[in-house]
């Protein structure tokens, strides 16, 4: 079973994504900030990360950079409410950029595309 790590400071969002992705048959772990996510990556191997941009302490961009430092092959999907910055840094080194929506279809399609 493929493992997905969901990083988001909003508990409700973490819960929603976890349930949606588990419904798709993935094993989902959630953390509420970048530091914990990075720490977890040291001990556990994940197949994909969904990453929020705006978080307290280290934000999504910094977290993304460090994740790619650890494992540049790890697919990271940015999930953010900021749709207007998509072309500013969306394509830097993330594998996908998904604007958060109540309709999770885009997220699910993106994950399915990457993980097969």
């Amino acid at each position, binding site marked *: 079973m493929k493992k997905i790590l969901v990083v988001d400071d909003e508990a*409700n969002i973490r819960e929603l994504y976890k349930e*949606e992705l588990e419904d798709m048959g993935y094993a989902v772990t959630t953390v509420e900030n970048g530091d914990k996510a990075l720490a977890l990556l040291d001990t556990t191997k994940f197949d994909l990360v969904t990453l929020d941009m705006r978080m307290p302490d280290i934000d999504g961009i910094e977290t993304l950079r460090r994740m790619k430092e650890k494992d540049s092959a790890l697919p990271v999907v940015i999930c953010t409410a900021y749709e207007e910055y998509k072309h*500013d840094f969306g394509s830097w080194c993330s594998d996908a950029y998904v604007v958060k929506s109540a309709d999770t279809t885009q997220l699910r399609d993106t994950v399915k595309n990457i993980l097969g």
Partner: protein
Amino acid sequence: METAEKTELHILSEISRISNASTDLSDKLHRIVEVVARGMGKDGASVFLIDPGGKNVTLAAAIGLNQESIGKMSFPVGMGIAGWVAEQRVPLALEDPYADPRFAYVPESGIERFKSLVAAPIMDEDRCLGVIFVLSTASWNASSADITLLTTTANQLSGVIRSAQMFRSIQDRLFELATIYEIGIALTSTLDLKELLSLIAKNSTQSLRAQGCTIRLMNLPEIVSHKTSSSFSATGDAIADLDSRIGGVVAERAAREKKPLLITNVARDPDLAEGCGALAASVISVPLIFCGNVIGVITLYNKEEVQPFTESDLQFLTTVASAAAVAVENAALYERMEDLATEARTRAQELSILNDIGTAMSTTLNLDRLLRIILTAATMGGSGLGFNRAILLLTNERTNMLQGMMGVGPTSWEEAGRAWDEVSSKHKSLMEWIQTGELFEHRDSALNTLARGIRVTLEPAEGVLALTVLHKKPYNIVDAAADPAVPRELRETLRVDSFVTVPLVAKDRVIGVILVDNMFNQRPITEGDIRFLTMFAHQAALAIENAIIHTNIETLNKDMRAMHEQLVQSEKMAALGAMIAEITHEIRNPLVSIGGFTRRLAKKLQSSEDKKYIDIILSEVTRLEGIIHDNLSYIKELAPQLAETDINTVIRDILALYEDELAQRRIRVETALSPALPRLMLDAQQIKQAVINIIKNAMEAMETGGTLIVKSYPVTDAREAGIEFGDTGPGISAKAMHNVFNPYYTTKPRGTGLGLPITNRIVTAHKGRIEMRNKESGGAVFTIKLPYPTEEKKP
């Protein structure tokens, strides 16, 4: 002792007695012929003297002949008995002279009373002075002793004549010296040139008993050049007329040859014969020479019936002329100094007027008011330049035209009279006019309308107005109708024959033209007027230039303020936009939760009743998400409005805008903007915003001052422009290096953190990119790379 010897002794002793007496020569000769006739026991004797030219022998004394003949009875040398003896220089005894072919009878001389004669030449060494005759009423066959006696007597006589002539020449010389002395005294008595010339003419005329005198001056300093001639004529019209016809030619000859000229009879001179007409006259002409230069010529005239001038007259006049030359030069110099003093007074007055006008002009920087002051000054009497009308035109470099700006002056005689009465009755100075505000009262005169209608292209063919600008010099038009430089149109506009144009030159550049005329009082415009007007124009030009610069600066200032406002406004908008974005994001997260879980709930619910409510919730969530999306798109989509833009100008504008702030922060700006850059397709407003954000960032990085280095350069291979901003701050930290374009990342305690991300977005929207690096020497460098416009291939 024999009788003959006794007689000879007697005659000789008598002659020596007579010669020692202090009487004049003619008296002596008269007494001598008496002694000779009596001594030789005859009834008559006479003496003929050869004139100084050696051409004629003339009766000088006689006894037994008619006394009226003395001085009149004359023979050319070689003619008559007297002439023959004078020529042959041998004694001659004729018992019957009437039968001799050499005899020439002179009627009423009294010679017919005599039957015989003996003549002997009066010799002085080898020079013949004259002839002595002894005449006998009885037939007389003279013996050789008689002839010897007469010859001896003649020899004695030569000494008498010689000493008498010598005495007379000494007397003449003394007289001459006395006259010259008197003239010298007279010459130093005045420094008035006119008076002096008249004095020289009068003295010379009197001393030489001439009939007329003319003095012509030349080559003197130009101040007196208008007095080219001053004449004094003693005998009125005939000589004055002669002088007017030949005087110039004579004077010119004397001046050219630089030496005295004696013309015994002008009628025989090939150059003058035609000019002098019927009037034959004698002329002497002497150049007045000072320091080797001919400064004039003095010419004296005598009509023929009077004694012609002699060499000694010429010599005398030469002496007078040399003294006169010095006096004339002195007088001319004095006159010139007086003229210079007058000139200096005029200049001082002009300067005072210019100073007043300058003060008046300095009261305003308003162009319209300034032009009115200038034109009023040009047309005011008293404290102004006093022309009747004045028009001012300014050049427009952009259109290459000269444009009439304003005209001041009356339009009609009536108005002119009224205006002058008004001015003279009020006695107001220019400053008073300005201070009372009267000068600026609205008076739209016909001349002003007319002036404003003048438009001339700056081409030489356009005539005098264009030429004044192009050749940068004044034009004095005296006869507009005949002057090819005055186009018909201008002539019809101005309706005057004479006017003057002067260029308005400020900092070596012609910024306009002032045109003045004296339409109403018809006073001719002099060179002095033009010179003064030129000085005035120079002053006026500088004042106009200042006013124009001031106006430009004001406009620029206004533009800058507007631009600043605009920027502040757009910054406010950006902040507002950021705030809205923030709020919408905050709303989006709960919406995701609400919508997401509702969807999950919907899957589990079977009741259609419940599903209906769920659908309502979901559709409302979707609507809200739609609103947020549209809202954010509006903020996000800053689609650039592209236009050809000079990026260097954009940079300069911004640096000018932040000049004060940079200076306050003690930040020095160095620029190296490449002129080789092509014009880029940019949205200037957006690029400005992008650049400002970088500069602000740099300013904040250099908290204690530093240097901002702004460069632009072409990257030809990549077909893009590089615009580099280097600061001397601490540089970009490793952390910041990855975050500067993050909208919510900021190292500053205050600030939205939106600055550089916005810059990045703008540059990206222009298909460009931003690069950043730290300099080894410290400080950060941000480089914007903007692509060249795509070349449109022409078919």
